[in-house]
């Protein structure tokens, strides 16, 4: 597909953020606060963090919020009324400054929430979300997108991909219809562009391993000691899953006082001991090593098998935020080496 390219000046991007806000969109961008960079609503570009690899949390919250009310319940003497979610209450969101890995993460969530079962709330949120990503001109030791089929300038998943080509200009690649809609709504901000090779503006993220074609081999090590060995230091919190752009597991709870209430879903993690606890008291994943195995299997075996998608985009968030330093890139290299040398 031939992707249309434009120039968006820094000053035009400033104006775009103002205009989008003025036109009733919520613009979320990476913002630095209390020493962390995370997505937050911005009214102007000046609020956006300049210096970040990726945000602490992924951008999945716009389509899969930490807490989502699925429907409301009202009871009276002789009647129970269920009130569906009001889709009109879902805001139109522009995500500015997502990275190509974040955008790739959306494709994986889309496959999960739009697979056998079409999750209507997820789809409604997705319909109202536009990704204006910015490609990566730098990376760090935790990044490994190129080892999991991504790259610092990949357009997949973004509606527009911006690349900073100098202090004043961004190269804008208009990837989707949603991207085109922004350009046609604000045509005065986008200028025509001579042919530009964006490669030289990209961060160098070396390919350090390749898991293509070894899904079955990983699966055949289901009973291996490697899972215990790798997870001895894991403390079993939910940080990796909560901040992961592709973790979509959730818990469902009713908040109900006898008269009215809501059914809510909230993020859950396969790293928690309660995650698989049966009502009988039996827990098929009783120890952390089994939970760690599940995390790896889901992303690198089950998703490739079910959706033909690798379940990890190599953003490195889990490794950066893990207090026990469960360094995913390193553990995957270790896993691959063990498998290949057996």
């Amino acid at each position: 597909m031939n992707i249309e390219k434009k120039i968006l000046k820094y000053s035009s991007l400033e104006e775009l953020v103002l205009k989008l806000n003025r036109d009733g969109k919520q613009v979320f961008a990476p913002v630095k606060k209390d020493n962390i960079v995370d997505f937050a609503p911005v009214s102007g570009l000046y609020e956006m963090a300049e210096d970040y690899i990726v945000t602490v949390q992924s951008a999945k919250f716009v389509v899969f919020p930490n807490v989502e009310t699925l429907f409301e319940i009202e009871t009276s003497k002789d009647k129970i009324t269920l009130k569906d979610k009001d889709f009109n209450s879902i805001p139109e969101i522009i995500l500015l400054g997502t990275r190509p890995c974040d955008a790739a993460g959306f494709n994986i969530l889309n496959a999960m929430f739009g697979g056998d079962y079409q999750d209507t709330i997820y789809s409604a949120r997705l319909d109202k979300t536009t990704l204006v990503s910015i490609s990566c001109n730098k990376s760090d030791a935790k990044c490994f997108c190129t080892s999991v089929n991504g790259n610092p300038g990949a357009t997949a998943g973004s509606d527009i991909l911006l690349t900073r080509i100098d202090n004043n200009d961004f190269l804008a690649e208009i990837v989707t219809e949603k991207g085109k809609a922004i350009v046609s709504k604000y045509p005065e901000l986008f200028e025509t562009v001579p042919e530009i090779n964006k490669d030289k503006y990209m961060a160098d993220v070396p390919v350090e391993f390749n898991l293509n074609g070894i899904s079955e081999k990983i699966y055949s090590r289901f009973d291996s000691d490697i899972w215990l060995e790798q997870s001895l230091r894991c403390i079993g919190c939910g940080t990796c899953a909560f901040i992961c752009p592709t973790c979509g597991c959730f818990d469902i709870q009713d908040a109900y006082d006898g008269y009215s209430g809501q059914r809510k879903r909230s993020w859950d993690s396969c790293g928690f001991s309660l995650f698989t606890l049966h009502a009988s008291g039996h827990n098929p994943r009783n120890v952390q090593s089994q939970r760690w195995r599940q995390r790896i299997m889901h992303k690198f075996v089950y998703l490739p098998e079910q959706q033909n998608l690798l379940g990890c985009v190599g953003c490195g968030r889990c490794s950066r935020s893990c207090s026990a330093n469960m360094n995913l890139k390193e553990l995957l290299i270790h896993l691959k080496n063990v498998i290949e040398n057996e």
Partner: protein
Amino acid sequence: MESIRKKAKELLEKNAVQVIIGYGEGLDKSVSAIFVRKPENAETLIFDDRCVHNLAVYLLKNEIKALGKPCIIAHLAALRTILQLASEHQITEDDVLVLGVTHKGELMEFAGFKDIEKYIASANIDISENEKEIINKLEAMTREERWQFWVEHLSLKCIKCYACRAACPLCYCSRCQVEYNQPQWITVEATPVGIIEWHITRAMHIAGRCVSCGECYRACPMNIPINLLNYLTVLTIKEKFNVSAGTSADLDSVMSSFKSDDKENFIKQS
């Protein structure tokens, strides 16, 4: 560092312990806990300024227990945790061999928990100047301002990943209060109420037990200074009961023990 490696190798060689819980370095030079079981791997142990994690969190983990008797490389906060765990009858002197390490990396061998107590009595167990400054600010606030401070830090930032709980060596319940769901005591969702309920409950559960190692803060992906909430309870308990957790292997639990000579009158039989 060399003395740690030498001692670890020796302990494993003579099978005095089966695993050394210490610090190691990964491919990208980041530090994590390592569990050394072979004498020849003792050389992977490191100790420097980056080795801040409280390794005592691993002492009660079933998978680690299954490896055999551990020797733990324990900095000051870990030593205090070990005494507190002993006070709470979670570990005994026979369960673990403790190798203390000063912040300069000097190795300390202890004859027993009493010996650790002596060392801690002589050590500076104060929090950092920076933390003191924030505590002073918090204490100077009105009740409403302080509530607002916590609402901003907790309700607006916490994602309820429970990293604070998992990293805390004294949050060792096999099933946490929040995991009892019949009935559901504490709101599960990361809503303002669910978040505040969780943090206040946790602060109360570790009040009088917290050794202020700061691990909850270090583990928090959202950088919430949750350790300060716990430290305020530490200060209050020191002031009201003159007790500091993690100074003796033989402390009664402040919040769940009764003494007939309690200084509060309301608790006494009239």
